Structures are given as structure tokens and as C-alpha cells.
């Protein structure tokens, strides 16, 4: 599934904090994207299995399945291998950043975050495709 076969790019947002889901979702919807929301890693994986998104914005610390794990599974699966991932987290120590890139994330955004910056990064990643 590529961007061209859809009217609007589909973005999956997963975070157990409803405020983040709201903030990020609203901002990206306003920017013209279609949004899928998940409140934990398990739900995220399930939504992905139903519709493969063009980009995934994942919180790292989520119950049941963490953002790292979701990213790893995305990379392991051929159908979802190409989905770019932006990881969101409150915790930014080198070990975490390294780990993020190790599992195959494309970008890393620290909380508190700037919505404009997030949108810019999303656009940058999706624009490349």
C-alpha cells in the first residue's frame, strides 16, 4: 500500500495518554491526513493488521505492547516493513534513542513536543514517498 493509492495518507497514532492522542490527532487531521487511533500497543497492531498505515506515530511506554515492540514487529513483517515510524517519548537518554533506531524507527520525538515540529517531520517523511 503506497500513498498514491489513497486520497489522504493514513497515519496511525498510538499512546495510552488520551491527551496526546487528541493533540497529535487533531493537528495531523488539520494538516490533511486521515488518522487511526490506538490506546495501547496491542490495539495498534490490530489496527495495522486491518489497514496498513502510511506512517505510524508511537508512544514508547504503552501497556501490553511497547512502542519498541510494535516497531520491531512492523519491521519483521513483510507487508508492513516499509511503514515509517516516529517514536514519541518522555524519556530521552542515549540508550533509548539507540534502541529506537535499533528496532528500526525512522525518527524520535521527545515530549513535551512542538506540534509544528511533529507536522514538519511527518511531512518530510511522507513527502519522500
Amino acid at each position, binding site marked *: 500500500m503506497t500513498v498514491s493509492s489513497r486520497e489522504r495518507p493514513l497515519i496511525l497514532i498510538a499512546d495510552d495518554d488520551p491527551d496526546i492522542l*487528541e*493533540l497529535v490527532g487533531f493537528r495531523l487531521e488539520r494538516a490533511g491526513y486521515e488518522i487511526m487511533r490506538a490506546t495501547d500497543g496491542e490495539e495498534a497492531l490490530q489496527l495495522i493488521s486491518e489497514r496498513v498505515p502510511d506512517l505510524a506515530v508511537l508512544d514508547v511506554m504503552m501497556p501490553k505492547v511497547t512502542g519498541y515492540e510494535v516497531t520491531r514487529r512492523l519491521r519483521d513483517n513483510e507487508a508492513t516493513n516499509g511503514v515509517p515510524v516516529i517514536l514519541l517519548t518522555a524519556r530521552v537518554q542515549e540508550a533509548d534513542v539507540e534502541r529506537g533506531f535499533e528496532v528500526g524507527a525512522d525518527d524520535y520525538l521527545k515530549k513535551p513536543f512542538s506540534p509544528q515540529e511533529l507536522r514538519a517531520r511527518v511531512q518530510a517523511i511522507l513527502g519522500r514517498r
Partner: protein
Amino acid sequence: MISVLTWGAAALAVCGWVSVCALAVRRFVLVRLERRRGKAELRLRRVALALLEGESVDLTDLNGDDADVLATVLGRFGRNLRGATTARIASFFERQGEVYRQLEALGSRRPWRRATAAFVLGDMGSRQGIASLRAALDDPDLAVRSAAARSLGRLGEPTAVEPLVQALAERRIPRSVAGQALLAIGEPALPVLRNLVRAPEPEARGLAVELVGLLGAASDGAELVGRLRDSSAEVRANAAHALGKLGAEEGAAELRGALGDRIPFVRAAVARALGVVGDADVVPELLQVAREDSFDPARAAAGAAARLDPAAVRYAAAVPGAGPHLHEAADLVEMAG
């Protein structure tokens, strides 16, 4: 005597049951209130989000309760955000008079009201609060001081760096609070922090060194290297740690010298840092520390040697008398494959 007791107990019992009834009523009322607030919040979230986008929203017909809910929602959102959006949140609160109200509350006689006000001012993001927050760093109550410190950090105010470190040096705020606030201010705090690395008080130096390690660049290595000979062990250990974090390779030679420090936890920090910035030359010394030193430094040295030269560690571990730390390090190297 007996009758006194009887009446006393009876009175208590009556009071007790009365208050239980009062609580039951209160609970009922609270639950209904919460449900109403929940619905209001759902409604007002869109308003909040629109405000964040910078759209003009008509707020004139907002009743008191709704204004409260909106403020809470915005405050919560604000905690997650940075950048231009926070400026919009701040101006909203300023226009509504909320900032003014909280500044007033900072003068309250009750410590918890002052502390809550100090905390909320940080969430609201208004720069109007900065002067009062700085003054609150001298409040008699610890919670107020800590909340003020955290808010100054959230507001990202560079002029607050020195007062924060001062407050720490005088033990007016806990280290973790000061540290976190300074980290929140981030890079703008660096110039002052770099100076404070030479402050008279060891706590101030210690924290400044630690934060330069977290915020600074490799070029700060030269100054930190000087701290390896500080009089305070804590500062020496922090300096070693910071040099490792910054990856400052010019520190390697001095660190090597510091492997012989008097204090075990300093030696451990030095060893760990060498694992990052050292080179193959220092491995034999690290191996010696790993064999002979006490638990913590030996362990750190074994780990550091393994990072620099895994083969050497494997080799050394096979020699009799290598000690448990080299064995552990070698096994871990083996496991990593």
C-alpha cells in the same frame, strides 16, 4: 468518671455517624459534579484545540465552571507541548485573568495553596510569573520552593539558572528538582552552568558538572577535566561521568591518571568513562583494576575493558586469578556473540 467516658464515647459515636452521612451526601454530589465536568470537558476540548491552533474563539459566554474546565484542559495539554503553541496558551490564561489569580495565590497564607499556584504557573506558561516564581524560591515551605523551581524550568527561563543552583547549594531545594528544572531549561542554561563548575560550594559544582555532561558538547571536556582534581569526591565522580557522557576524548589521559583516586566510587566512575573515551592503551590498567580493586570499581573496569577490547578481556579471563568481574565481562562478551 464513668459517665464522662460514656458521654464522651456517645458524642464521638454520634459525630462519627453524622460525618458518615455527610460523606455519603458529598460523594453523591461529587459523582454528579464529575459527570457534568466530564461532559463539559468533551465539549470544551475542541475549543481548547482550536485555541491551540491560534484560531480566534468567542469566549465571552463561557460561564465560571466551563472556564475552569477549559483552563484545566489547556493546562494539561500545555504540559505536553512546547513551542509557539505554549505562547498561545499563556496568552489565553493571561487574558482570562488566571495568571493574575495564581500570582495572588502565591501570597496565600496556606503553603499548599502557594505550592499549587507555583506549580500551575509553570503549566500556564506565562512569563508574567517569572519574577514571583524566582521570589518563591525563598519561600519557607519546601513544597512551594520545589514547585517554583519546576515551573521556572518549564518556563525555560535562563535567568533562573543561577538562583536555582544557588537554591540547591543552600539546600533549599532537592537536587533532583533543581537538576530537572535546569535540564528543562536546556541549552540556554549552559553558559551559566559552565561558570558554576567553579562555584565555591561543592553541591553547586557537582550539579553543574553533571548537567554540563548532559547538556554540553565535547568541547566542554577541557573544563571538566580540571574537575577531576576537585576537592570533593562527588564532583570528581560527576566529572568523570560527564566526560564519558560527552565522549570527550581529550579527557582520556587525565581519566587514566584518576584511576588511582582514593575513593572507590570515583574510581568506578572513571573506569566507566574510560570505557567510552579511552583507547586500547588503557586496557591493561583497566584489567588490573578489574582484578584487584574492590567490587564497584573492579566491575566498572571489567565492563569498560570489554567495551574497548573484547578479545583482551576474553583472554585475561582465561588466566587463573582473573577474578569474578573479568569472568562476568568475558561471559557477557561471549553472549553478545
